[in-house]
């Protein structure tokens, strides 16, 4: 928010590293500077390489083995993938649920968040109060959200069945594998919309009011002003929101895990990965293969996001 006016001019000094000058600069650092740099830059870089990148690469490697943590690692080629795609039933349920998750976050939660942001940007009284309320679910742990969901959706005592007057024919919102994913998605929307709202509110505040005034003078109505003038200037925010939404949808884990450990209609790819290593089932190779499928889905978005960053940095 505060940084946006400055960022435009900031990269300028960075863009002038002439070959000769660079050498001079490096030499400028004294004998004491190099050890400090090596240690304090080295530790986080090594930590990141070892725990994030090496493990990601290891997941890819392990996914072609039948490793179970005890016996020797045995290469099995594509067998894990073959089994996942053909005989491992929870997989397709999980894929469907992850897609639903993405669809609902993208088509319901995100527009809702944008809508809240637009309404709250209208110089409203108590706008802070409304903002806090809409944003509040975001700070709650997803595990807590999962538990609160059980109070509302409980078959016998839940609020929802009482409100719908279904005391005699209660609906088992979380137990019925046909509908429980939708019940959980409501909770996910509840949490995601506030996040999106905050991002858009910051973006809307940064929009030059002169743009809107000009549009109004040109006779644009409010809808036209928003969709033709304001929304296009929010492009950087839009990209972030898309990336965050996709990543949230792929990472979704805690809510379903808190509700029923992600079984009975609430399978997600992330849950299947952990289910294959936590507890008795120590199918590391198999779990890794599911993780690699998850990685393959998200990597495209990660790259798209990074190219966007680099492009903006060059400007």
């Amino acid at each position, binding site marked *: 928010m505060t940084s946006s006016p400055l960022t435009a001019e900031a990269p300028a000094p960075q863009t002038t590293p002439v070959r000769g000058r660079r050498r001079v*600069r490096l030499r400028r650092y004294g004998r004491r500077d190099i050890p400090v740099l090596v240690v304090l830059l080295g530790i986080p870089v090594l930590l990141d390489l070892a725990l994030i990148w090496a493990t990601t690469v290891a997941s890819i490697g392990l996914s072609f083995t039948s490793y179970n943590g005890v016996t020797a690692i045995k290469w099995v080629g594509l067998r894990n993938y073959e089994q996942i795609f053909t005989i491992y039933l929870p997989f397709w349920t999980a894929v469907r649920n992850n897609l639903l998750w993405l669809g609902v976050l993208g088509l319901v939660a995100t527009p809702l968040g944008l809508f809240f942001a637009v309404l709250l940007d209208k110089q409203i009284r108590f706008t802070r109060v409304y903002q806090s309320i809409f944003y509040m679910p975001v700070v709650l742990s997803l595990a807590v959200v999962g538990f609160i969901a059980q109070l509302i959706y409980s078959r016998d005592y839940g609020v929802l069945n009482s409100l719908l007057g279904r005391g005699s024919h209660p609906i088992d919102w979380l137990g019925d594998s046909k509908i429980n994913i939708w019940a959980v998605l409501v909770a996910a929307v509840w949490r995601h919309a506030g996040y999106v709202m*905050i991002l858009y509110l910051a973006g809307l505040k940064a929009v030059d009011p002169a743009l809107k005034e000009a549009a109004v003078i040109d006779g644009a109505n409010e809808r036209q002003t928003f969709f033709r003038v304001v929304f296009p200037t929010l492009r950087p925010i839009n990209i972030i929101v898309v990336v965050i939404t996709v990543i949230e949808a792929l990472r979704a884990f805690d809510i379903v895990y808190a509700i029923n450990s992600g079984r009975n209609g609430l399978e997600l790819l992330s849950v299947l990965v952990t289910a294959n290593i936590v507890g008795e089932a120590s199918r590391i190779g198999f779990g890794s293969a599911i993780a690699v499928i998850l990685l393959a889905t*998200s990597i495209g978005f990660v790259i798209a996001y990074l190219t966007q960053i680099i492009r903006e940095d060059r400007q």
Partner: protein
Amino acid sequence: MTATTTAPAGVVEADRRAPNRNRKPLRPARMVLYVFLTVVALGWLAPLLLAVYASLRPYAETAKYGYFSLPHHLSFHYYGLAWSSGDMPKYFRNTLIIALPSVFLVLFFASFVAFSLSRVKIPGRKTLLIMFAAGNLLPPQVMVTPLYTAYTKIPLPTFLSSSETLYDSYLGVIAIHVAFQTGFCVFVLYNYMQTIPTELTEAAAVDGASLWRQYWQVILPLTRPALGALATLEFTWIYNDFLWALVLMTSGDKLPITSALNNLRGEFFTDYNLLAAGSVLVALPTLIVFFALQKQFVSGLTLGANKG
């Protein structure tokens, strides 16, 4: 300028009210907006209010009348029960053992990395920046399996971990938090430091300040607002974490509070009112942090997003 609902008239209205824009008289369209927002806001609060309400009522009562009924008895009984029989002080302490060092190390490492990437002409610094930023975007489940395997095989002295391996130790959980979250903070702080004029560190260098002093005495004080924002955000995220402790720990009494919440669930019978009281207690610290430091919280998120 906010021209509401009717656009052609909006121009005239806006001009007339230019001196005090904030105090518009209530027009019907505004009224509708306020009513709408208030209704939605109440709906948004409802789940949490319901949890608080349920936690104040005995199980027998809600079992008989359902959660959607008038109260007969209200008490804080379940809070005491969750606090003592759920062993919550211990789990809160575990959370702090993990969260405080993690947040401190994340901010320290991330600020130094961001400083050196933005001020020192290190070869390949763009690659390093991308490595940090991209690492934070990967799904954590991709790291879970090898991490779990590696942790069970890395020995630790007993005074660091009673399990004698990195698995089931606080150190292991802290390490992955630091590695994972540093990526996000490096990215945010790098962008923030780009806005600080390079002349400042250059002048300090001319005056003979070492690299460490340029970082500690010149850049870090100017980065304080961003650090405050990130500290708030990171504390909440690490506090709320569920996955890492679940996968990388096994002893029940080492678990952080969010993962330990499951302990309140009985083996054969779950008292949801007790669970509600536990949930409220677990949510309380993050809600307090949020309401007390809302400004930092929001600016932390938008710092990461606005320049992206």
